């Protein structure tokens, strides 16, 4: 898709096995170009979260391991690196379900994101202001405990916290989960802004195909541990199969009975 030099992250044919028994990813390859927003789409249990966790090396906590393939971040193989080392290198994950530190205030939560920074208080302070500028809602709630804020605000805290580490790349897992459509749009708007203004690359796993493809540059569609379709976001969203199975739009809207097809579109790649 892109030449390897311009790639931020390359995942090359990885296999993931849980519990020594269950093969979950059966050879997944993908590339995130520098400054790209790549959407990883698919149904429940397709392997989106597993892919993200394989990249940021969080599988051990769930008795999983990468058995084959390699993951290259900025030219270095990173399978053996611990999650904290990856953060130092500029690749950070925002986990599904937010995982804010419930007893810390919103501001403290954001400051935890700067844990790996070594460039002084002034720079961190400036970034905090920048964060509040992106999420004005958080500024109003800066002194309240994160556990008492709403779901959307917690998602903002989680993204803001990741930003505080000055990442080059953010792995975003289901940012839209459980949020109102309006908030989802707001969050994707911010993803878009960060990408355009600060050049942060994104790899986002999403169920909400329509929103994700609207904001992404590239898309990959996973199904039961394999990538079945990929391409530019625009091409994908015009693909008939994607429309039928993931966007919920029939081939040409309403049709008259004269033109009704007598067969159903099938997932040909399953054959």
């Amino acid at each position, binding site marked *: 898709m892109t030449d390897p030099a311009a790639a931020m992250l390359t995942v090359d044919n990885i296999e993931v*096995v849980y*519990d*020594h*028994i*269950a*093969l979950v990813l059966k050879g997944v390859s993908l590339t995130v170009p520098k400054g790209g927003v790549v959407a990883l789409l698919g149904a429940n249990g397709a392997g989106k979260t597993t892919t993200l966790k394989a990249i940021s090396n969080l599988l051990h906590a769930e008795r999983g391991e990468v058995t084959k393939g390699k993951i290259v971040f900025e030219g270095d193989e990173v399978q053996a690196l611990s999650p904290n080392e990856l953060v130092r290198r500029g690749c950070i994950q925002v986990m599904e379900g937010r995982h804010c530190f419930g007893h810390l205030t919103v501001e403290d939560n954001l400051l935890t994101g700067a844990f790996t920074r070594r460039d002084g208080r002034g720079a961190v302070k400036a970034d905090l202001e920048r964060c509040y500028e992106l999420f004005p809602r958080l500024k109003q709630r800066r002194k309240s405990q994160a556990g008492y804020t709403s779901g959307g605000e917690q998602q903002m805290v989680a993204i803001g916290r990741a930003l505080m580490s000055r990442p080059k790349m953010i792995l975003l897992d289901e940012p839209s989960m459980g949020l109102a459509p309006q908030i989802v749009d707001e969050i994707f708007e911010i993803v878009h802004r960060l990408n355009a203004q600060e050049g942060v690359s994104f790899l986002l796993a999403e169920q909400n195909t329509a929103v994700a493809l609207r904001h992404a540059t590239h898309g990959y569609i996973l199904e039961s541990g394999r990538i079945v379709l990929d391409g530019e976001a625009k091409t994908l969203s015009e693909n008939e199969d994607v429309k039928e199975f993931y966007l919920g739009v029939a081939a040409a809207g309403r049709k008259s009975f004269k033109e009704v097809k007598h067969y159903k579109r099938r997932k040909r790649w399953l054959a």
Partner: protein
Amino acid sequence: MFYREVGQFKSTYAADMAIFPIRQDRIGIAVMLGLAVIAIPLVANDFVLASIMIPGLVFTLAAIGLNILTGYAGQISLGTGAFMGVGAYAAFKMASAFPQVNVIVWILASGVFSAGVGVVFGLPSLRIKGLYLAVTTLAAQFFLDWCFVRVGWLTDYSSSGAIEAARRSLFGIAITGPEATPLARYFVVLGLVVLLTFVASNLVHGRIGRTWMMVRDMDIAAELMGVRLLPAKLLAFAVSSYFAGVAGAMMVFFWLGAAEPSAFGISLSFQVLFMVIIGGLGSMIGSYFGAAFIWALPVLIKFTPNLFGIEIQSATVEHANSMIVGALIIFFLIVEPHGLAKLWAVTKQKLRVWPFPW
């Protein structure tokens, strides 16, 4: 390949829910029982029976009891030793008060008393969770310890403060007291432990067991499904203490023959807790593995040098033993943090799909 259920069809719900749904498992359990009933008595000498098999089985029963409470219902308890003590003292009192009734009846009944005590000390569990609950059960441990020492009535005012197993027999064969042979005691212990394992296994595989596991995994969700938390938790405390109590009674009557209050101290509680953790929380077979690991392994290590005719000072053996067992505990928990039972389950899965890796 070696362990595969291909061609074994189940046509009823009961068959599907059986404790051993796979034929290989049934054969395996029959072989194990055969070994325990026929091979071990033929091969083993009195020492192996009296110092490995009998205590191993008694601890297994205690571990099953704690596993029900901690592994299945998720309530941490540090009072197992005291609950075992309650069973032992209850069995002692009843056996001496009603000598005409068979001692097996009293051993099985002694658990009822520890179940009652367990329920009382389980009452705080509705409010108190996790490590804080462990601390309140610690109170049970200290309070009951105090009772065993201070309440003379419990020991029939014996001057030494110890209780002693009375001489009793079954079908004319002495099973408790100094005349009972290790073989006779072994058979009684084996029978009781197998019977009670069967009972426990059926409990945890049914509706009650599911209730406990719901409470363990997420008590709020369990409540939303209509589970009444207090009865569910108290039942877990009762059943768990029952098993611990019977194990305690068996400890005095079939293994030690006599016991002082210090036998039921906090170290006993910890010993059983380690068995449950290393064996595997929430697993019946894990209780067997854990008891074997924590009890039988040190005994084996201790006598291995003698077996090969190597003369080592007993103090040296004792120190080496602690180090070896400690290192093995750490090793096994690193290899498999979820206990030996999980290791066993993974092995079975591997055999199932062999020669493919998954």
